[in-house]
């Protein structure tokens, strides 16, 4: 069963719902990854443990996200079934202590390697943020 754009959009939606909307814990986010001690590699800065990612999103409210355009999906192998997915996610939020404050608005470059496990679920093998591009009117945030 090939890994499709729809699979990746669904994975992106589920993971970002978990981290941004449901404010899931690091342990809950780890369920999306093949390896329990995974990191989010931020190419242009400090990498994030899942705990650090959790803490970033604890500082934000009103978070929304969506996939921009389509993902570029490159099949890698059949056994295990793996693909590389490269795409962009729009991310918006607001600092928790600035309820009427400016919105954080950002395009996030995503470069993932995913694997379909025997249950049929997709898991992140490698999760890379290749860029963060903040919009000109975006509120500042420290990602590192």
């Amino acid at each position, binding site marked *: 069963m090939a890994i499709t754009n729809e699979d990746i959009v669904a994975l992106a939606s589920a993971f970002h719902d978990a981290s941004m909307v449901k404010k899931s814990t690091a342990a809950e986010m780890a369920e999306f990854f093949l*390896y329990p001690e995974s990191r989010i590699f931020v*190419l242009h*800065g400090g990498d994030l443990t899942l705990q650090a990612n959790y803490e970033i999103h604890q500082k934000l409210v009103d978070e929304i996200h969506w996939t921009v355009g389509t993902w570029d999906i490159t099949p*890698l192998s059949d056994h295990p079934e*793996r693909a*590389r997915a490269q795409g962009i996610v729009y991310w918006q939020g607001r600092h928790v202590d600035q309820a009427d404050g400016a919105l954080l608005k950002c395009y996030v470059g995503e470069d993932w*390697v995913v694997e379909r496990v025997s249950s049929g679920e997709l898991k992140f093998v490698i999760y890379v943020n290749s860029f963060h591009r903040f919009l000109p009117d975006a509120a500042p945030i420290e990602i590192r």
Partner: protein
Amino acid sequence: MAITRDDIVALAKAYLDCVMVRQEPPSEQQKFFLHRDPPLFLLRGEDMTLQQNYELHQKLTDEKHWSVGWDVTPLCDKPERARAVGAFYWQARLKGRPETDLIKAYCFQDWIVQRLPSGELKFVAYINTGHSFLPDSAISDGHPTGISIRGESSR
């Protein structure tokens, strides 16, 4: 101080000497990495821990390696990071096999590296994007001797 191709060649040599030539344990390999217990990602599956990498090389002898070429792309200044995409040639022999029975492969790499304040380069992410075994290589992908490295070609 920009991260140069020479820096990457030196890092590759130092790390691969540790792994292949001196066959050092995971605690020594760990010194080359920024994060604790880093996986060695094999893009097509069979990712390895440093312990598994150590055990794989324990099965081998007469290992040699050299860089084939690297493209180095600066990523950021603080911290100083670069992406290094390239390959190294790898040659080895399974212990107990005839001296002519050599494994020969090009190993393709995609590394993110970071320079520490000490000046040292560390691996942030170590991704092996593929192995291509030479036509006269003693083994290739799926060889039944216990060494298991996915390759782009099967014989």
